[in-house]
């Protein structure tokens, strides 16, 4: 079985720059994405801490806030102008520059060729371009924090006319940079996605039939389709917003025949597929980790696949659920409500199939498994709170309250981010050839799990009490004052939550050098990537492996050597060679 894993020979010694900076190797590009997006995750977290300080202790000088310039805070007390920037950029960074690149940039890049048995992406150079454009976009977005008047002040959703009119928002350069950055990022995503799609369709190793693909790859494939179709719409919208700012066009200017709701339609037509871009890969990787941790085949593989496809499709016809209160035609609202509620069904299938996978398993609680199980537990909370908002009459009350904020964080942190903590630990050995520390991994997991819930669960209560989003100082309203203790409590838990993330940061960084050397297949998994040494060599396989079975053959009766796993690339006497492999191997 190691014969498949002969180290690649036909790559000439490359300079450091070609090898690690301007690399076209999908694994290096994935790692580049990993470091950059973790950095942005940190930035987003730091912004969140300032948000929490202001909400927990309004009107009190923030520790260390003294260093902020007068435009942001006066002797440490945050200004409202700065607060809305914090919120907007927190959302922007987390969605566009942390979670999206972490899931798609890192794992689509790293996993698709490895799990499908390809030497690399279909278009390695386009792939490199995709990273560097994303990097550029990140820099532009970061810069917008430091231009005069600071960053955008209209939320990550940039509702117009506020976003389109500097005289209303008080921002010019921040807004322009936001638009430019998003257009560049969109380009990056399209380049990346068309790469992933082509690779999945055209570069599967012999025997890797559609229904032998790991669910992670299925999810990343559907995600790429969403990305390639959704981001251009956002680009178009951002360009029009930019022109409204700079060329004086009137797309979103009601006084001149433009429409305010047009932006919302365009944004959310992108926006909802986007949120599924932020969850589907997590779901896919969680499926892999749960099957591995349960030592059992995934429960109902086919329906898992169809559920992913169904979610991907439904994601296109529900965007109006963000606009129930916007004055949108109420009949339209009704239809959007129904389509939105229907998404609960495929999600239910996935949830219960994950449970079915664990049922009667032989559960190994390594760090990836812990995080994967937490994903299921937390995503369900977020998903169920989504049902409240999907019901239009209820949304009439909870729209734009902290109930939404709670939802956001249960699906995005409890969902995507937990999945990522698992995934990072799970594939770390293939990336760096070392293991992350399991002990500290578990400590980080448990502390995160606790403080995360302490931070975000009470937000449901804030929402039920009518606490609006994006407000700088809740104590302005009488009916919110009784909630201030709760706000304080949330803030303190949030600080703790941030603090324990540093454990992860330390574990991640130190393991690069100190981590114990990783064996070839540390988790005893079935994927093709584990047929390679850790870290996987450039070019992956000398000759692409042949695939004989599905990816989840755990505890199969009659597995040789008393193992409880049976890799996809392992040929048993009973296996027949797939057609593609029989044809004379050319080149390669």
């Amino acid at each position: 079985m190691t014969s498949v894993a002969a180290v690649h020979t036909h790559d000439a010694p490359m300079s450091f720059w070609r090898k690690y900076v301007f690399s076209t190797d999908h694994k290096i590009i994935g790692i580049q994405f990993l470091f950059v997006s973790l950095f942005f995750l940190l930035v987003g977290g730091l912004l969140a801490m300032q948000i929490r300080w202001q909400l927990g202790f309004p009107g009190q000088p923030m520790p260390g806030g003294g260093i902020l310039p007068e435009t942001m805070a006066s002797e440490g007390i945050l200004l409202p102008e700065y607060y809305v920037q914090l919120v907007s950029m927190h959302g922007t960074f987390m969605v566009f520059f942390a979670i999206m690149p972490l899931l798609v940039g890192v794992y689509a890049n790293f996993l698709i060729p490895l799990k499908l048995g390809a030497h690399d992406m279909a278009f390695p150079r386009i792939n490199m371009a995709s990273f560097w454009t994303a990097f550029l976009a990140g820099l532009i977005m970061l810069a917008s924090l430091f231009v005069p008047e600071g960053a955008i002040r209209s939320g990550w959703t940039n509702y117009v006319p506020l976003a389109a009119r500097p005289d209303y928002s008080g921002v010019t350069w921040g807004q322009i940079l936001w638009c430019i950055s998003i257009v560049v990022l969109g380009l990056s995503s399209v380049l990346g996605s068309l790469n992933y799609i082509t690779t999945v369709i055209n570069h599967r190793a012999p025997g890797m039939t559609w229904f032998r693909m790991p669910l992670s790859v299925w999810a990343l494939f559907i995600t790429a389709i969403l990305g390639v179709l959704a981001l251009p719409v956002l680009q178009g919208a951002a360009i029009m917003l930019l022109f409204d700012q700079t060329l004086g066009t009137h797309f979103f200017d009601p006084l001149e025949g433009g429409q305010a709701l047009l932006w919302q339609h365009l944004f959310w037509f992108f926006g909802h597929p986007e949120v599924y871009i932020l969850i589907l890969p997590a779901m896919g990787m969680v499926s892999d980790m749960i099957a591995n941790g349960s030592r059992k085949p995934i429960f109902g593989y086919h329906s898992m696949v169809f559920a992913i496809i169904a979610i991907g499709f439904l994601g296109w016809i529900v965007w109006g659920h963000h606009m129930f209160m916007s004055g949108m035609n109420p009949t339209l609202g009704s239809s959007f409500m129904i389509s939105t509620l229907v998404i609960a069904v495929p999600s239910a299938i996935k949830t219960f199939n994950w449970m079915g996978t664990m049922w009667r398993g032989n559960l190994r609680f390594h760090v990836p498994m812990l995080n994967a199980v937490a994903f299921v537990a937390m995503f369900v909370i977020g998903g169920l709170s989504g049902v409240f908002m999907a019901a239009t009459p209820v949304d009439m009350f909870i729209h734009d309250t902290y109930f939404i904020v709670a939802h956001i964080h249960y699906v995005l942190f409890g969902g995507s981010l937990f999945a990522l903590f698992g995934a990072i630990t799970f594939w770390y050995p293939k990336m760096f050839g070392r293991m992350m520390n399991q002990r500290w991994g578990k400590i980080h997991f448990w502390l995160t799990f606790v403080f995360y819930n302490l931070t975000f669960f009470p937000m449901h209560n804030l929402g039920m009490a009518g606490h609006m989003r994006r407000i700088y100082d809740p104590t302005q309203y009488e009916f919110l004052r009784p909630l201030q203790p709760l706000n304080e409590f949330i803030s303190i838990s949030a600080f703790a939550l941030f603090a324990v993330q540093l454990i992860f940061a330390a574990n991640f960084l130190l393991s690069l050098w100190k981590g114990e050397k990783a064996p070839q297949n540390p988790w005893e998994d079935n994927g093709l990537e584990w047929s390679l040494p850790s870290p996987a060599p450039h070019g992956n396989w000398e000759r692409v492996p042949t695939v004989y079975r599905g990816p989840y053959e755990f505890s199969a009766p009659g597995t040789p050597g008393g193992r409880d796993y049976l890799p996809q690339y392992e040929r048993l006497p009973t296996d027949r060679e797939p057609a593609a492999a029989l044809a004379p191997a050319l080149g390669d």
Partner: protein
Amino acid sequence: MTHAHASTADLMRPPFPAEPGAGVYSNKLGMWVFLASDVMFFTALIGTYIILRFSTDLPWAQPGAVLNVPLTAFNTFLLICSSVSMVKAYAAIADGDRERLKFWVLMTILGGATFVGIQVYEYVKLVGHGFTPNGYREGSELATLAAAEPLKYGLQTAGIYGSTFFTMTGFHGFHVTCGVVCMTWVYFKALRGGYSQQDYRGVEVIGLYWHFVDLVWIILFTIVYLI
């Protein structure tokens, strides 16, 4: 983009050995996926135009009132011609005729370049008359005309008319320009004999892009100039 391990036998076939996929080689599939995403990009722009124009009851400028239709009709014809020359180039190299490939690619480049040239000229004229991305410029020729005949010139909707017109046609023109640039690259590669009956992927792929841009223009011409 050349293939990472472009050592498979017939580059005009799906990569090999691999499971059968879309049944076409990757560059072509990649281009089709890109075109799909470009459809969505133009959906945002053209959709905006449709939404803004047809959800207002205010009169819109009548066709031909502001825009120079005969000139654009000719431009449309030109773009169609360049599409034909493109497909001719494709047919030529598919039959292994490198000389005709060069000729037709050159024709296509000329066609595309002229199209852009004419569009720039049209822009200059329009702005000169006072048609700008934010409506009819104060005190310009158009502004006075519109004031005289508000219905014919859609005075109240001039703002979004300008916005949508310049954005849509502008980004189409941008696409054409990119096409011309890539095409020039293809041309030089063709001069160096870079394409053969065995491998003319570059020609076919750029062709797909080119025809798509033509297709978009066909739609734009109708809904922007004629309706």
